[in-house]
């Protein structure tokens, strides 16, 4: 079985969960004897995977996290045209991720009469909950309608596809993301650190994190670390200063994978106050690093973990209440950490690959 996978992100360039997903999925598909040509705009390396660096793109790099608007669209158009030219015809299934590479996917599907599998990591309704772009919604709708089988990263995402895109329920399969827990580690947790890690955009709820910090600081002395970059960074810094909590909040900006692992390892609590989170792979990363996890109820990852607490993203009091308890009672922290780590050990990418192969077999029948 040979797959032509049309990628967009790959380590070390990580902006969203897609990169992590693509890396581990392709790696584990390869170890399950699936042949993969992975097409990427900026190359990469992964054992067993044939990575094809799609050149001749007018905008060569996709490294700026703030890439948006016209720049983003012309990059995507140019990348899709290059894919159409570059993708060879010697494959059995074409596999796209989200809408970004789907227009090339559809064209190649029509050209080769080969089936197309589409993984939905998030929709525009998740990324821009307040003001979704019509242009992207249309692209997503076309991609969803044209895919032969769809993989949704959570039941929540499956429901979004059915409710908001009128997708055919029968072709949507839920395969939750996983974690390579061995690549994370635990450090000394003696500084009472509460962590936010994600893009600083409305969807992720970073401003709630600051409200929560303010509330916690009335009761407990703790450090709040905001990891990530995004258009909201300046306003968040100003907000922290206005609230008078600037001495207890650190903004790191964009950091490397290795630095992220280190921060996870010394954090006591990881908070994900996302307004909308189709999956939320960072929650698994935090659990693998023995940080206690508090998730927004609207996250897909909460469908597969039992040893994390959930909360409404807007419920500052409840979030703060839980954080204070974790910081105060070592017994709570230990129970969550030990059980959490145990739990995620069974959530493996090998399983994701095996379930994905089932979808490939289904689409080939």
């Amino acid at each position: 079985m040979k797959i032509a996978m049309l990628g967009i992100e790959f380590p070390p360039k990580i902006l969203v969960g897609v990169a992590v997903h693509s890396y581990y999925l392709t790696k584990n598909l390869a170890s399950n004897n699936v042949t993969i040509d992975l097409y990427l705009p900026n190359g990469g390396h992964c054992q067993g995977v044939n990575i094809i660096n799609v050149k001749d793109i007018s905008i060569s790099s996709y490294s700026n996290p703030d890439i948006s608007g016209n720049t983003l669209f012309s990059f995507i158009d140019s990348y899709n045209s290059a894919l159409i030219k570059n993708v060879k015809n010697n494959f059995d299934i074409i596999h796209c991720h989200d809408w970004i590479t789907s227009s090339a996917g559809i064209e190649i599907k029509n050209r080769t009469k080969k089936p197309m599998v589409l993984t939905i990591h998030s929709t525009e309704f998740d990324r821009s909950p307040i003001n979704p772009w019509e242009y992207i919604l249309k692209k997503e709708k076309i991609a969803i309608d044209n895919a032969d089988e769809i993989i949704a990263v959570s039941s929540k995402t499956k429901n979004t596809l059915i409710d908001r895109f009128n997708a055919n329920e029968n072709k949507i399969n839920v395969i939750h993301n996983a974690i390579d827990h061995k690549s994370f580690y635990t450090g000394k947790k003696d500084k009472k650190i509460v962590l936010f890690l994600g893009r600083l955009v409305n969807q992720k709820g970073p401003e709630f994190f600051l409200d929560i910090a303010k509330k916690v600081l009335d009761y407990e002395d703790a450090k709040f670390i905001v990891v990530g970059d995004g258009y909201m960074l300046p306003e968040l810094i100003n907000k922290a200063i206005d609230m008078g909590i600037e001495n207890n909040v650190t903004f790191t900006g964009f950091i490397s994978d290795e630095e992220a692992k280190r921060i996870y390892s010394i954090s006591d609590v990881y908070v994900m106050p996302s307004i909308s989170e189709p999956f939320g792979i960072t929650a698994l990363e935090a659990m693998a690093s023995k940080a206690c996890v508090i998730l927004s109820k609207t996250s897909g990852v909460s469908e597969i973990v039992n040893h994390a607490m959930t909360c409404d993203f807007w419920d500052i009091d409840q979030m703060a209440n839980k954080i204070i308890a974790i910081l105060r009672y070592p017994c709570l922290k230990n129970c969550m950490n030990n059980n959490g780590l145990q739990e995620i050990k069974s959530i493996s990418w090998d399983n994701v690959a095996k379930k994905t192969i089932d979808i490939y077999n289904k689409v080939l029948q």
Partner: protein
Amino acid sequence: MPSICMYFEVHQPMRLKKFSIFSDDSYFDNEKNTGIFNRVADKCYLPANRLLLQLLDEHPDFKISFSLTGIFLEQCSNFPDVLDSFKELSKKKNVEFLSETYYHSLSALFHDKKEFLEQIKEHENIMKEIGIKISKVFRNTEALYSNEISELIENIGYEGIITEGWDPILGWRSPNHIYKRPEGNIKILLRNYKMSDDLSYRFSAKWWPEWPLTADRYSKWLSLCEGDCVNLFMDYETFGEHQWEDTGIFSFLRHFPNETFHYDNLNFKLPSELIQTYKAVGDYDVVWPISWADMERDTSAWLGNEMQKACFKELQSLGELIKSKNNETLLKEWKLMTSSDHFHYMCTKSWADGDVHKYFSCFDTPYDAFIAYMNILQNMKYKISKNK
């Protein structure tokens, strides 16, 4: 000729609110408690009591026993028809009510046993108040039992005590006999967990090869049992709440007495009759506490993890503090915190038993259960410090 002894535990906990560190209101979720009580009354207490009253009239030799916790009876004040139907049952000659702690508590495991004995007394008092006589047989919360607990109960005049017939303690011996404590005289009635769980746990399990279980087949199994008695001990909520009406549990119960009377070697006996009729055949030596809960049958359902242990320790030291003050309201609230149920919700055992804990819990996770419980203890502590 095995005697069938049926005993049903009747209890509804006082569930806590999701009490946060910012909360400053009452600790108990009265709305939820009333809602659940109402549901269980409709599905279980009222229809099951009605059916049992009818069966007791139809079959003069059918016998059943109950114990009602104090907090169940407190909640009955909003449901007088439920209390009335239990009172009506208590007037029947073949119905017995057992003793237990008022608060369905873990107080038997406290370092200081005074509270345990006090809660038994409180239970005796409320039973007297509502006019239901209790027998000389005691059932501790969740059948928690040890030599130490047994001795305490014997010393205050009880003649029988209920617990689990647990293989590691029985060894090759059968639970279908009366046992005694080494160096004690109190008689021990052991639950036959295989036969009891066929009703309380497996009755509606479609994976079970014996499903669906009928009263005639079950009676046949009982008639084939060897020993003096087969003790069928379970939550009363088995009838209609844990096993819904559509599983056929009421129809089973309706036919059960009649089916057993087809067998000459079967009869029904009350717990107090068992201990008078049969001699103890041997010692049941329990050094560490056992219970009827979970696969382990120990205390790990309530005191298995660090959170539960921390709360248990804090609960006891807070108790001493409150008792040194003169604050009736806080003392009452503290006693309500001694219920085993609050600890059950904090259980993190993740295998098959985890499902049982999830089923009963009113919290999203054991961690939320811990936070609410600990916040309340701390709030009580704060109130005491202001009340100097």
